[in-house]
């Protein structure tokens, strides 16, 4: 993975964002972006760097916001991090670029109530069709 070149390309594409690679275990680099930058960033990774293996999309309720992590990997890991507001969280889909993201978006959608705009398949993945309670991964406790 040409990490330096990727970070430079992301900075060029998003001049208003502060692109910084945060090194985390194990062999991972996290980059924080605004939500509307995630789909174009995925496009840069796929089309300019051929980095198209998305291992997973993690969704988590940090208490103050819904955080999404897009874990890319080619032997080294690059995770794009973004935060959505808790009220009606939504973000553009990446399924048009990475069809393998479909199950991951469906799971985050049902577990955290996130809407992936433009995603063609919004069916539940794991929860029953008649689930009418709160998204199960929305926490009650706030982490300090």
């Amino acid at each position, binding site marked *: 993975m040409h990490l330096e070149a990727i970070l430079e390309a992301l900075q060029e594409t998003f001049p208003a964002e502060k692109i910084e690679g945060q090194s*985390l*275990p*194990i*062999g*991972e680099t*996290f980059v924080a972006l605004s939500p509307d930058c995630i789909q174009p960033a995925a496009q840069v990774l796929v089309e300019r760097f051929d980095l*198209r*293996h*998305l*291992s*997973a999309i*993690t*969704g*988590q309720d*940090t208490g103050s916001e819904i955080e999404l*992590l897009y*874990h890319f*990997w*080619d*032997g*080294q*890991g690059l*995770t794009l991090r973004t935060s959505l507001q808790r009220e009606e969280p939504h973000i553009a889909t990446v399924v048009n670029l*990475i*069809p*393998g*993201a*479909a*199950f*991951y978006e469906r799971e985050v959608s049902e577990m955290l109530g996130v809407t992936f705009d433009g995603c063609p398949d919004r069916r*539940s*993945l*794991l*929860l*029953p069709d008649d689930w009418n309670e709160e998204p*199960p*991964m929305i*926490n009650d406790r706030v*982490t*300090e």
Partner: protein
Amino acid sequence: MLKEPLSFLLTVEGERVVDSVLRLGYVHRGLERLCQERNYVQNLHLVERVCGICSHIHTTTYCQGVEALLGLEVPLRALYLRALLCELERIHSHLLWLGVLAENAGFTTIFMYAWRDREIALDIMDELSGGRVAHAVNILGGVRIDVGEASVASSLMRLDELERRIEVFLGVIQHECTFRARTRNVGHLSAEQVRRYCVVGPVARASGADVDVRRDAPYAAYDRLRFKVITSNEGDVWARALVRTLEAVESVHLCRQLLTELPDGPLSVRAPRRVPPGEVVSRGEAPRGELVYYIRSDGSDKPARIKIRTPTLATLITLPDQLRGVNTADVPVVLAGVDLCISCADR
């Protein structure tokens, strides 16, 4: 056919499948949410039960993530023993799968022989850990078992017998005409499809993808071991059978290295109860492919988040493509070819 619940709605025209809709979630247990309500030691036992077949790689990937947050250096002897159980687990998983594929293809004899010979791997794991399938070998900071000279000697003898039996299955896959007829050009995935869908493991490698976490991002003792990553360019169920069986042979060689080169030393280091705040992404190569754990700690003794992406979830997504145009009689073979573990996919 499968011993786990999964729903497929097939649309057929005559004997051909034209479309399929997959429904998961029948064994969804909410394990990720449960993990947030238990401490790191309790979660070790919880994540071991995500899957019955690949329980050890789950605890290995989980432990190495938490150990990275704790800044622990796991002793080398423990890393070797972790890798040993990983490879024994890979052998038993691939033989289990071979039997399931054979049964779905109507080849009950190979199902019986594969599950009989799989007992050798289970017996080794039973002798080493006290458990055939749930081994509870890993603890935070290392392993709880040790292997003496007598166990090394008996395991090596059993591995020789196992290798002889796996070679028989290799011969069936390569030369037996009815097995080839049932599996060749069935459930084909191209290299491009595998990349688009982010497929992992033997399904990806059987379509030419040269990826393996053990080699690409070594963990446990894999940076000290010599092994081949097996690939094929055929992309069909037959290629997946060949790749998995050759991988089982490689795993026997790896087990021999691990047993004969086992370094001396302690088995574990002490792991504190509270984990400092932080995040980690930990990966392992499960028998079905890349397993990913994301763990976030908030400084307490309970994780703020554990995300588990199992390899089956990354291969299931290809099934509608694989099933399109397939004869209904071949549907069980295509489904078996992916090596589904619904327990893993649903969590």
